[in-house]
């Protein structure tokens, strides 16, 4: 069994990224837990495979028709970054500010949004909301380009309050209308042409075009508005400033952070009716939100170093989202060390499991936790992880097998094999039943070192990939 230090580091690495292998964990433990947290938060990640390399073999991989291509590029970054934390952060915000391909028909604009999450997602929440309100994908997705002075469309105003900041029950319908008025004139440049192209999926004449924000003063309602009790000739920036001051916003964001990084909370629609799993933690995070000037990175620094995060009680208390499952598995198997055709198909597996990046079911994003699991998706999940881990031709798996063989001392025991494999895969903790089952399986197949054939090890690794513990993070 791995040491407690290793197990805690494994927990941290599963949450800030997509899990780490045994070698990585050993290296990080040497640095010390707090130093590792600081490094993850403060260092810029390196990508082993550069954007130039991707574009060289997969030209313009982010923008062609269908949302899967840009998802594949993103997945690539998750798999081949030394610290995939920034991509995890984008994934976090993508789940909240869920924007979908169906209405945009333009992958480039969505890929730009994901880049924006990675650039602003660890900064001040006020800046992030401002960037979000200027984001072309969001402007189209929630119709702000259809909201005009004297003829508002409430869609963005409503979701900004309900899904992106405070949650229901903290504002009135009148507030929504006032927000919508304040955001009139916030649109995209060349709106008619861009929407005409989107509405017809047009790649003609010369491919898709990226989009940018435009503020139209003459379409902005500059009159006085009253929002959450404050009155003024508010523009969008003023509204965001007021939103960010609210206690409800602090709590709402804290709960999202808790749910994504600590343990699954119920889906957002249930929040008004269900207390948080850990109200003190939410309270503490809210305090950091105000103390540190709405700074997300500082909230996370506090969280990762907190007792409630480190507590064994929350280890593996989340169901891996399909993207976490796929990215984490590929980091182990080390596939696609250079761009390859198979990467698109591999990326599609997240969709088969119910999470199609950049094509969420609605603006509410995905429902997480146990809702990822049904009898259809369990088949997809089990088959994916077991066939990937069981493929002895994958570089990462080959290395694990070599490690098994080189570490074998005098007497082979099933316990030894199970122990080493669970460690190599990132210090996975398993139940007694699972361990006994694995043990019986190994006993039925492998008596001694000479039975450590590729076929036997492949079957064993497939069973490991299929165990319920592998579905958790």
């Amino acid at each position: 069994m791995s040491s407690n230090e290793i197990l805690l580091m494994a927990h941290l690495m599963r949450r800030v990224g997509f899990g780490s292998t045994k070698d990585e964990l050993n290296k990080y433990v040497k640095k010390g837990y707090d130093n590792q947290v600081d490094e993850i938060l403060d260092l810029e990640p390196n990508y082993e495979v550069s954007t130039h390399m991707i574009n060289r073999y997969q030209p313009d991989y982010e923008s062609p028709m269908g949302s899967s291509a840009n998802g594949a590029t993103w997945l690539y970054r998750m798999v081949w970054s030394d610290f995939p934390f920034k991509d995890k952060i984008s994934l976090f915000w993508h789940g909240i500010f869920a924007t979908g391909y169906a209405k945009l028909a333009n992958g480039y604009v969505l890929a730009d949004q994901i880049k924006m999450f990675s650039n602003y997602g660890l900064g001040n929440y006020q800046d992030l909301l401002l960037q979000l309100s200027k984001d072309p994908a969001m402007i189209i997705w929630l119709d702000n380009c259809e909201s005009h002075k004297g003829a508002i469309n409430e869609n963005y105003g409503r979701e900004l309050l309900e899904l992106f900041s405070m949650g229901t029950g903290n504002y009135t319908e009148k507030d929504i209308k006032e927000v919508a008025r304040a955001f009139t004139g916030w649109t995209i440049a060349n709106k008619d042409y861009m929407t005409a192209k989107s509405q017809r999926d047009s790649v003609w004449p010369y491919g898709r075009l990226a989009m940018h924000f435009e503020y139209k003063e003459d379409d902005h309602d500059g009159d006085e508005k009253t929002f959450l009790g404050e009155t003024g000739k508010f523009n969008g920036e003023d509204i965001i400033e007021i939103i960010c001051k609210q206690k409800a916003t602090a709590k709402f964001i804290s709960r999202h952070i808790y749910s994504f990084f600590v343990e699954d909370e119920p889906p957002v629609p249930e929040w008004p009716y269900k207390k948080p799993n850990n109200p003190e933690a939410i309270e503490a995070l809210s305090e950091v939100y105000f103390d540190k000037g709405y700074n997300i990175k500082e909230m996370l620094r506090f969280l990762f170093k907190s007792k409630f995060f480190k507590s064994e009680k929350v280890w593996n208390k989340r169901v891996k989202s399909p993207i976490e499952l796929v990215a984490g598995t590929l980091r182990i198997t080390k596939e696609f060390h250079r761009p390859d055709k198979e990467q698109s198909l591999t990326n599609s597996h997240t969709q088969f499991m119910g999470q199609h990046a950049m094509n969420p079911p609605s603006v509410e994003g995905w429902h997480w936790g146990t809702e990822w699991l049904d009898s259809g998706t369990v088949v997809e999940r089990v088959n994916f992880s077991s066939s990937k881990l069981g493929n002895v031709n994958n570089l990462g798996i080959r290395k694990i097998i070599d490690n098994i063989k080189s570490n074998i001392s005098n007497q082979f025991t099933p316990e030894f094999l199970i122990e080493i494999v669970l460690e190599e895969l990132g210090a996975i903790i398993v139940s007694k039943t699972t361990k006994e089952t694995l043990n019986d399986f190994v006993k039925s197949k492998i008596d001694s070192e000479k039975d450590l054939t590729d076929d036997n090890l492949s079957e064993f690794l497939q069973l490991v990939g299929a165990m319920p513990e592998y579905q958790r993070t």
Partner: protein
Amino acid sequence: MIEQKERSLVVIQLSGGNDAMNTLVPYTNGIYHDSRSAIHLTENKIIDINGSLGFHPEMGEINKLWNQNKVAVINGIGYPVPNRSHFRSMDIWHTAESETIASDGWLGRTIREIDPKHKNVVTAVNFGRGLPRALVCKDVPVASVGDLNTYGLMPDIKGSVQRENVLNYFSRMYGPNQGRDAILNTLSENGVSAMTGVDILSRANSQYSSSVEYADNPISNNLKDIAKVIFANVGTKIYYAQQGSFDTHAGELFNHAKLWKDLSDALGDFFEDLREHDRENDVTVLLFSEFGRRIEDNGSGTDHGSGGVAFVLGGSVKGGFYGEQPSLELSEQVEGDMKYNNDFRCTYATLLDQWLGIDSVPILGKNYEQHNFINTGI
């Protein structure tokens, strides 16, 4: 208890936007010939059905069913304010919601009505990878089958004996001996039903026997797999498959013909198979596409349009025309497209109420006028 010979609905999505005008061809209309200078179909090959409209030459098998009065042609089908993006328009058809972005699919909601406690893990079976939004609904499990012959858990384990062996260990790990928490409960519940579903479907595969020889192409394979599950009487009410891509911006004459030939022949074999097993009256097939295409061609194909055509086929279908054939006159066009004259949700409502016997109002959100293409006398 499994009800014998129950009714089912097979939905086949024609992905990419089927060109309605080259499917149900208004071949006696001068406007058709004028606007389709590059890609009109040869007049003497078109299969006439009423003196002014004809099927695409490759739809011979569908025409046979038409002659047996088993094909409802739904002309001018669409929805208000057409959207010509594949993704958005398909979403509208899937969710049956044309104004806002919805997350549930109409068939997903239907399955929830049929089997609210999901007692049967194979109430709906999707053929193809990844679930179309039409089948998506909270708490509704749907099995997605790429190929029934290889469908199962851990298909990479070589050899059936080894596989059975490994699956025994799998079921132990998902069994009731595991410690309890919410996640593990859900995992083991679904792990067990996944195994059940796999068992049911592999039995359907091995029990199948038929004298019909299907062609070897994706849609034929899917329809053959659907037939296998139908004959196994496992309680499946909804089947879903796709044919495509109908996105014929270029090279339409060749591509469109092949797509319809494969589909029409596959349907011919499928219905023959149903007849052989005496199930023809228990199965109704819907063919739909997210939109039709431009009236005018672009030199080698057609661009995205709106109003289209759908088909409902089966032994219990009252053949004939439903909906009106849209006028091709310039004044009647919508931005160069055929104008829709009947909402696709009228067809959905008919299938739900009259075929599956399920109240369509809660599923579609309101009461839609219904067609009468289901033969209620049976």
